[in-house]
């Protein structure tokens, strides 16, 4: 299961605290986060709130991740800029990259197209594995940026990458 590969990468990254807003693409991953005590999982009501909770966890000594859909990146931009970038508070953002190949919902397409440019605009390095084999490398690169620049970093998971995931409902 691809979600298990991603979950193991979170563990290798050192993530021990995750905040999330539900996403179909991450359905299995979110249930892994719920089941595993190695990562404290706090689901939040909105993505920007998750940025705040994750920043607090970092200040408390944790290595946090934010697990969201790209639709929620839009309402997190100010917090990522005026909290994480200003104080140099790192954060791993795992983004379900909707709106690309295979997308059936028109409302996902504009944010799908804008996501990489939005991340570029506020100086957040992002990595998009194009195959299952590329997943570990993407996380390794993200980890390097996380620690070197003390910045939020994003790993974008496209629908195409998850197409062989079991029990998918999107």
């Amino acid at each position: 299961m691809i979600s298990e590969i991603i979950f193991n990468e979170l563990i290798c990254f050192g993530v021990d605290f995750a905040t999330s807003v539900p996403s179909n693409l991450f359905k299995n991953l979110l249930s892994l986060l719920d089941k595993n005590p190695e990562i404290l999982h706090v689901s939040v009501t909105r993505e920007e709130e998750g940025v705040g909770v994750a920043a607090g966890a970092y200040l408390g000594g944790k290595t946090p991740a934010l697990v969201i859909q790209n639709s929620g990146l839009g309402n997190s931009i100010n917090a990522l800029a005026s909290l994480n970038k200003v104080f140099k508070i790192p954060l791993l953002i795992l983004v379900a990259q909707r709106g690309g190949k295979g997308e059936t919902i028109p409302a996902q397409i504009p944010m799908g197209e804008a996501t990489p440019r939005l991340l570029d605009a506020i100086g957040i390095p992002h990595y998009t594995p194009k195959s299952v084999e590329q997943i570990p490398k993407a996380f390794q690169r993200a980890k390097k940026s996380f620690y070197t620049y003390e910045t939020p970093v994003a790993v974008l998971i496209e629908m195409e990458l998850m197409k062989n995931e079991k029990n998918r409902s999107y």
Partner: protein
Amino acid sequence: MKRIEAIKIIADELEKELVVCNLGFPSRELYSVRDRPENFYMLGSMGLASSIGLGLSLSTAKHVVVMEGDGSILMNLGSLATIANHSPKNLTLIIFDNESYGSTGGQPSYTAGKTDLAALATGAGIERVLVVDSPQKLREAYRKSKKELTVIVTKVEKENADVPVIGISPEDIKNRFLNAVKKSIT
């Protein structure tokens, strides 16, 4: 009660507690009343004080005090639901309610109208919600807040104190805070 008086009452009580303070005048007032490494002064990201406090309280054994505002919590009401459902015992959320956006010119917030912050917190599922309007009641409420999750809605005047801006860089605010957290663990 002026907000700076309310802040001073809490600041005088602080020992090793970690404090997250809302941006703008509240942070400036806390900085001028009692600066300490355990204070995290927000500079932006309005609305996220309670969220930062929640993440912190779930990550450390130390007691966490959040100094929040009415306009700020109204931006992030979902946070009350998240906090209620995790209910960390080591979190005290103090909401200074001056019924206005005090750092941007005093525009009225909806707590000046029909909105009741204590009822919102209770409705979100927070069991211990107190409303105070005097220095003595605030001190008592704070002292009793250390054993379980508590929200203290503190009614304050609209006035901002004439205090300087925070003279520490964002990175220094973060680094000395991180060091204080590390020290408290070892």
